């Protein structure tokens, strides 16, 4: 079928409101009568017992309605459920002990936020400070301070995996090349921080939270269980607009529970808007990780086995869906390479830091940072250019679909062809000349590469890989990724679509309009897309939401299928009307026309109207032709098998990046000369948005590479609580990326599309690190690549 709208880049329907300042974000929405405003008093200590909280003075302040503490919350909730069973209790507020700087200790509810913050200063908390565990490796020491006494140590999960014959591969290797890396914490930092309005209806025992929670809605039952109600009695509704998320707004979930309880206690609706300092301190973070990676390498640079040892720092509590950051990539720990043997040791450690959560890239940057630096290092060991090592090891197109040793099924793509296309279109030869010229002129110039797999559409079962086979059997099988969309025609032929993808600014409504317009042969302006979600009314599943780049592949695919089913039904109505086979009707230009006889046909609008007005005349065996709700889950997503193999995602994109950087010899500042990012994300539904995702993904990767770090001092003090202390790249620091596309349709998704939103966030940190290491003549380098650090290296190495 030829597309008219899919694959073009119309203006976004979202933009008129957003660009004129008329978006409707959490803080713009009307507040229910009698609502109270919340402010959260947070722990200034990384680790401290709470011996008492005296809120008398705060409660005496005019305008203060209530002060909610851990004791109150504990009485009305249960600890959050997580994927790894442990004796660690996690409530949305500190109970008896605070375990990270910024952990909620008390919630003040007052007539406005000003009074609430005044009252916060009047609360007297009696803290008994404790030593903090900060470094994840030291946190495993026998004498390290233990965060959760009941757990006995700070290690909450350890699993080893062995696929293929790793021992044999290492024994036969010409070289064993290894690397150890430390990946720092960073945060995707959406422009809008968290916000919510929570209400409690005591008559029906229903909690109702309006918030820009982005999913996955697997967290909805987690929240309901914490609130001790059936999940039908926790209604989550989303606002019309959300000012970015990049995964982070999954982290509003504990606050939704906290404020729901607060509303119940105060018997009034509660509004809470997080400020930037709270956000940087406590919203969540990508995990920091210490990785040791060893490769068995043949003389020609072919890698035959990888052995991983990963220590994942999830902060003070294991917060659902963690340790998903560690296990999302489990399926593709061999990257874009054909490596048959794989061993993995995973340890999950708690420390006195903010609990981690979803962040763009989610586990990808942490994996590719060691892997792609190792590939470069292998080049040095075998005496070859890093690029030739990448080429030597890429999965060949003839191997597609390629099954990774840990169970991933790389569905499609010609990785080598994209590399060559990128080198050509990105004028790589010229870049090599630039490096040569720069070095001759005495400049510090380097080239970096990164080849990565971008997993898209997460398998809801991948996190259960953290469990043993026996534990999984007890818990029951988990796998799949239901996406849902509803397409309905109204009496005048208007088309209403609703989706449960909770967009955070990406333009989902525009793309779904294109998809449905093509499916029904109508103009896009006939189609109106509603992306607000109400779990008490709309179809949704635990996989609903906006994460793992699932929109283009899964949600747009579900909308395509829903519209296709509706088209089939409308064709049958037409077939009965004109007494000819339904298959002969084309839907185009707002008409339904007989393919062989253009005289037979009817306006889409007219036919849709008959479904409403003349239901009695429709064929008796035809289901209604008014509305179709489609649930789509790719059948390639099965639970882990008995050998711990899991296909963690439905479709896999491929990325190849390369760049040239110059380092200022005096200041140590990195100047990006050129950056090329090449993608095969399957069929592109809206190429301009795909480019935007790559450019934006790059900006996040750039920030993590060059300047962003949620830093803690050795005692657990937090050093990055304001944007003055947590610099992020602005437009001035973010160069334009040259984007190269190749479109290999995925055989797995309905439209052949894969995700593209996270790829460059995964690839850019290591690509830039490789370039900087090349410029400075280093084997490897850790992040962030801040000028002071690079200047010290330049000075020490007398470059």
């Amino acid at each position: 079928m030829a597309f008219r709208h899919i694959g073009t880049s119309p203006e976004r329907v979202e933009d008129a409101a957003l660009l004129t300042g008329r978006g409707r974000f959490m803080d713009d929405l009307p507040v229910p009568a009698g609502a109270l405003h919340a402010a959260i008093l947070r722990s200034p200590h990384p680790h401290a017992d709470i011996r008492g909280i005296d809120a008398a003075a705060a409660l005496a302040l005019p305008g203060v309605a209530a002060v909610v503490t851990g004791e109150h919350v504990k009485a009305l909730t249960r600890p959050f459920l997580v994927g790894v069973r442990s004796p660690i209790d996690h409530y949305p507020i500190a109970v008896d002990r605070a375990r990270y700087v910024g952990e909620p200790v008390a919630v003040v509810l007052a007539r406005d936020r000003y009074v609430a913050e005044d009252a916060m200063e009047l609360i007297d908390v009696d803290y008994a400070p404790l030593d903090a565990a900060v470094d994840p490796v030291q946190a495993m020491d026998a004498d390290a301070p233990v965060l959760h006494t009941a757990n006995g140590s700070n290690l909450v999960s350890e699993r080893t995996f062995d696929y293929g014959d790793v021992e044999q591969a290492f024994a036969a290797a010409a070289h064993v090349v290894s690397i150890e890396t430390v990946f720092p914490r960073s945060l995707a930092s959406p422009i809008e921080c968290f916000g919510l309005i929570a209400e409690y209806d005591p008559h029906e025992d229903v909690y109702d939270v309006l918030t820009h929670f982005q999913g996955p809605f697997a967290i909805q039952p987690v929240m309901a269980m914490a609130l001790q109600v059936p999940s039908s009695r926790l209604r989550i509704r989303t606002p019309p607009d959300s000012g970015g998320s990049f995964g982070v707004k999954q982290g509003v979930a504990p606050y939704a529970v906290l404020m729901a309880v607060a509303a119940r206690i105060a018997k009034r609706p509660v509004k809470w808007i997080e400020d930037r300092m709270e956000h940087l301190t406590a919203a969540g973070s990508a995990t920091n990780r210490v990785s040791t990676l060893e490769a068995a390498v043949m003389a020609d640079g072919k890698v035959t086995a990888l052995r991983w040892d990963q220590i994942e720092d999830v902060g003070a509590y294991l917060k659902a869906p963690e340790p998903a950051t560690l296990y999302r990539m489990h399926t593709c720990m061999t990257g874009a390479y054909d490596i048959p043997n794989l061993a993995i040791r995973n340890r999950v450690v708690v420390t006195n830091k903010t609990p981690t959560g979803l962040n763009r890239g989610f586990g990808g940057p942490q994996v590719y940072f060691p892997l792609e630096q190792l590939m470069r290092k292998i080049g040095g060991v075998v005496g070859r250019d890093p690029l030739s090592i990448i080429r030597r090891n890429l999965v060949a197109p003839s191997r597609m679909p390629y099954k990774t040793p840990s169970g991933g099924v790389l569905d499609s793509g010609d990785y080598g062809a994209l590399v060559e296309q990128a080198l050509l279109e990105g004028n790589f030869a010229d870049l090599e000349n630039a490096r040569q010229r720069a070095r001759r002129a005495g400049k510090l110039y380097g080239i970096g590469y990164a080849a990565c797999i971008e997993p898209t559409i997460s398998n809801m079962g991948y996190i259960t890989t953290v469990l043993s086979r026996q534990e999984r059997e007890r818990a029951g099988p988990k796998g799949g990724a239901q996406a849902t969309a509803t397409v309905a025609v109204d009496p005048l032929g208007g088309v209403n679509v609703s989706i449960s993808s909770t967009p955070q600014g990406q333009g989902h409504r525009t793309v779904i309009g294109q998809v449905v317009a093509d499916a029904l042969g109508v103009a896009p302006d006939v189609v109106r897309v509603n992306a607000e979600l109400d779990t008490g009314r709309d179809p949704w599943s635990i996989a609903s939401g906006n994460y793992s780049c699932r929109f283009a592949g899964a949600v747009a695919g579900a909308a395509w299928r829903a519209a296709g089913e509706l088209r089939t039904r409308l064709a049958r109505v037409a077939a009965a009307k004109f007494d000819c086979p339904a298959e002969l009707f084309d839907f185009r230009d707002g008409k339904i026309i007989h393919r062989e006889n253009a005289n037979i046909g009817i306006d889409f609008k007219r036919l849709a109207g008959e479904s409403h007005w003349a239901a009695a005349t429709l064929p008796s065996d035809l289901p209604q032709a008014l509305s179709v709700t489609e649930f789509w889950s790719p059948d390639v997503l099965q639970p882990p098998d008995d050998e711990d193999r899991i296909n963690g995602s439905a479709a896999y994109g491929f990325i190849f990046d390369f760049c040239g950087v110059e380092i200022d010899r005096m200041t140590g500042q990195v100047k990006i000369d050129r950056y090329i990012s090449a993608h095969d994300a399957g069929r592109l539904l809206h190429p301009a948005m795909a480019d935007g995702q790559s450019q934006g993904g790059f900006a996040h990767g750039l920030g993590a590479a060059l300047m962003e770090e949620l830093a803690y001092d050795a005692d657990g003090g937090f050093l990055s609580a304001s944007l003055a202390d947590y610099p992020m790249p602005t437009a001035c620091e973010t160069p334009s990326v040259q984007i190269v596309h190749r479109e290999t349709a995925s055989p797995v998704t309905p439209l052949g599309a894969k995700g593209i939103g996270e790829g460059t966030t995964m690839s850019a940190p290591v690509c830039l690190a490789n370039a900087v290491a090349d410029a400075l003549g280093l084997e490897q380098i850790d992040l962030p690549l801040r000028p002071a650090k690079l200047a010290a290296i330049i000075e020490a190495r007398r470059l």
Partner: protein
Amino acid sequence: MKPAAFNYIRAETLDEALDALAEYGEDARVIAGGQSLGPMLNMRLAAPDVLVDIMGLKDLDRIEFADDGAMAAACVTQARFMGRLELRRAQPLLHEAMPWIGHVQTRSRGTICGSLANADPAAELPLLLATVGGAVIAQSKRGQRAIAAADFFQGMFETALGDDELLLAAKFAAPKPSSGVAFREMAERHGDFAIVAAAAVADADGVTLGLGGIDAQPVVTRFDGLLARDAKAALTDHAKTLDPQSDPKADAAYRRRLARELGLETVLKAMERRHAV
């Protein structure tokens, strides 16, 4: 991030502003553009009882270019000052350095005098005033006095202004004839406060170098009779005498390196430009 309660006085006349400062003294803060004080209020790093807003005082919106220097009164925004054509000739150092101050948006509201009174050790304007010399005019009910630039900055966020005094105007001294100037700054991002900023003025008798971001206040050093060939040694020696701060962004060693290297580059550029004149 909501400020503590304060009383707000929008002064209609200079006397009203001075009355308020006389009455409330250290419990009052003057607000002009609010680009530094606004966030400090929101973070409750500042919690004055009274805020005296002077932006309604039209008389204090004056800019004067005279033979002995350039003057900006209390309400002159950085953007307006920067936009004056005379600036290039009258104050080439400011002309070169002012684009480094924040962003277009902050310069459109932030004032010259507000930045001076705030005395951030990494801000450009205090460095520039300290380097070119000049004075500020302090006004209170008690009277008016001039405070020499060299005496004005007294530490991190500290100045010689009394609690009841308003910074009425700042005057940047005119450069000596045929001076050469240069400005360099290192910040991780465009518009950030400097890690280190260097401003140099070279005249027939030597070079004045001001360094920001190093100490609690601008460090201004005069190198009399400096020759270009001796500059490297002079800056190397000078950097050794500095005791810069360390923070997560940059440690003391890095700041010292920048003081030496950036300082040298700036000094040499100023000397080169003097010869070009």
